[in-house]
């Protein structure tokens, strides 16, 4: 344990500051890369016309957004809510087509979104508030422990979803034939995020200092949330693979497909 640093009038520990700094920079970078990608995608979509046969909107992001809103507003408010709940959140169209694929989608999507939001909530509230503002270094590890069942549940959901995606490609001839390297890269990314996540979580929660010391660059006496290069790797990798990479990859459908469903009034029946 090194001497504390004085930041915003609070004393924090060096090792925590280094962790926090890496995470904060990574998160900001990931969000910037993500937003830049989204901006470029919106510009691409803005090359299209507002209505069929009309002139190009010359890559205007604003024009695209107006076109999209105009299309969505063709339906009544209650219908849009119905589409949002049934087709976007509950993926009714996939459910009708293939129950196993639906289950896989739901597991991956909600496992991933849930973990992302929970991590963000814990980091910003307990880590930022607890350590930096309330100066309570117990609050953060306690939060991790308290939320462990939720983290476990979401992680297992994600794991089951990935296992199904993997299994379908191993055992279904058709799915395998229709998959290409992009699918495999994405599955590999997900596996890496989940596997490293499980281990990182184990490291965070363990009180066994010897286990932590194996992977930790810094000595620490609190629960293993900080000063651990493996958990840092997991967090930084997840941010870049699962956030920044979205607009540049097949993951883009996670954003485009709900918008397409909304724009088409729930899709053709």
């Amino acid at each position, binding site marked *: 344990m090194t001497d504390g640093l004085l930041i915003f009038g609070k004393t924090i520990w060096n090792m925590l500051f280094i962790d926090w700094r890496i995470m904060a920079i990574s998160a900001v970078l990931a969000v910037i890369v993500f937003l830049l990608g989204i901006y*470029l995608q919106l510009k691409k979509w803005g090359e299209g*016309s507002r209505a069929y046969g009309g002139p190009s*909107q010359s890559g205007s992001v604003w024009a695209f957004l107006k076109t999209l809103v105009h299309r969505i507003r063709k339906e009544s408010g209650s219908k849009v809510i119905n589409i949002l709940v049934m087709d976007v959140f509950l993926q009714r169209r996939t459910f009708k*087509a293939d129950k196993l694929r639906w289950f896989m989608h739901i597991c991956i999507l909600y496992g991933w979104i849930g973990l992302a939001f929970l991590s963000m909530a814990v980091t910003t509230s307990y880590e930022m508030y607890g350590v930096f503002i309330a100066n309570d270094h117990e609050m953060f590890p306690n939060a991790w422990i308290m939320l462990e069942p939720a983290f476990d549940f979401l992680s297992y959901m994600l794991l089951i979803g990935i296992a199904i995606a993997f299994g379908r490609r191993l055992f279904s001839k058709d799915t395998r034939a*229709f998959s290409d390297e992009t699918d495999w890269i994405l599955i590999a990314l997900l596996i890496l995020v989940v596997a490293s996540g499980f281990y990182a979580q184990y490291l965070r929660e363990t009180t066994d200092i010897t286990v932590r010391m194996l992977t930790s660059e810094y000595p620490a006496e609190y629960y293993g949330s900080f000063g651990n290069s493996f958990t840092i790797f997991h967090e930084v990798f997840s941010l870049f693979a699962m956030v920044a990479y979205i607009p540049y990859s097949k993951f883009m459908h996670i954003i*485009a497909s709900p918008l397409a469903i909304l724009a088409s009034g729930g899709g053709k029946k």
Partner: protein
Amino acid sequence: MKPSMTSERFTAVQLMELDACTRCNECLNWCPVYEEINTGQFTPAELPEGRTATEQEALAYSPRNRIMVLKDFINKGYGWRARLFGPKHIPEEDILKFKDELYHCTTCGACGSVCEAGIDTVEIWESARANMVINERGPYGKQSGFIDLLKSYNVFAADQKDRLCWIPEDIHVEDTAEVGYFTGCTAAYRMQKVGVATVRVLDALGIPFTMLGEEEWCCASVAVRTGQLGIAKEFVDHNVNAAKKKGIKKMVYACAGCHRTSIIDWPKFYEGGELPFKVYALSEYLCELMDEGKLKPEDFKFKNSLDKVVTFHDSCHTGRHVGIYEQPRRILELIPGIKLVEMERNRSYQRCCGAGGGIKAGVSDLALKLAQERVRDAEEVGAEMITCTCPFCRRNIMDGINAMDTNVVFEDEMVLLAEAMGLDLTVPQNPYTDKNM
């Protein structure tokens, strides 16, 4: 540098839809063209002779791949790499290969109906075709002949003055009326029995109606489906203005192709985007009258029992594209003696007969194979007769029947209705009598 494939004719939402594909592959389970190619029933002319398509070659003709290739082309011209480093060149042979794949599609819409991302695939195919035509890469094969034919304002290069030459003398066509009957080129020149049946039914039910006659030009479906949009606005404006002059408030159609084009495509070309009349499939109009109590089942005054096991083939155009599934069945169920059975693939899951999307003219052997599949669907459920509300499906399915050893026959729904009502379906002698199908 200009992108090798431009975004012309694509709407902003369509460009977004290209990124929405989750590659779930559901569309592959329903695309009739992919099925024919993948099972070796049909081999595109572009593939080496003497063998069927490999799994990967067949995949190139699937809706999913078409979306992926199109997305890739657009990304090369406008994606993030193109924004940062300039558009990437796409070899012309790659674009032409894609064009061939794009035109091997009946625009049936099955892929769109099952698409998990809600992508309006048919509109994307048609925008892509229009893009191909603008850049002088499309259309495909004989489809380019449509524009020459349409110089005479109908697809048969027939005389417009003869548009109503088949109307029986005792049928009164109003000069102006609230209801208009849009005949379509096929019923006017090649399937006049369908036209006669339609006017007889309207007349017998006491529905006053008018027709555009010489002023009825082709609905422009063949041009729109194949991406040749140059003439579309002129044709649409002409027809809509002619209907306005006749005081038409409700236009009824016994041709699914004209119906779809009028309700979905005409507003895209007509100034202001809103037609001054409501567009109805004839069965839909009759059902509306019944629902309003203005028409009762007994008004049909049926005289004949048809005593047949009949199956209804939903045309892609009135079915999947417009969403009319139940009304034609309600009308059929009124007909005495008809036992209605459903084919396994019906309503939004229907299997396309293969006539649409320019396939009949562009890839006629594929159209024939698809028609035969549909006849087999009917045989499987023990149907003796297939009926439909589309003269174009009628023609293709009958070609399929003629090429097979089957007892299944085909009849148009309006003809069945008129026969059951005991109406005279004699088509008066006219210059097209010999050309009737």
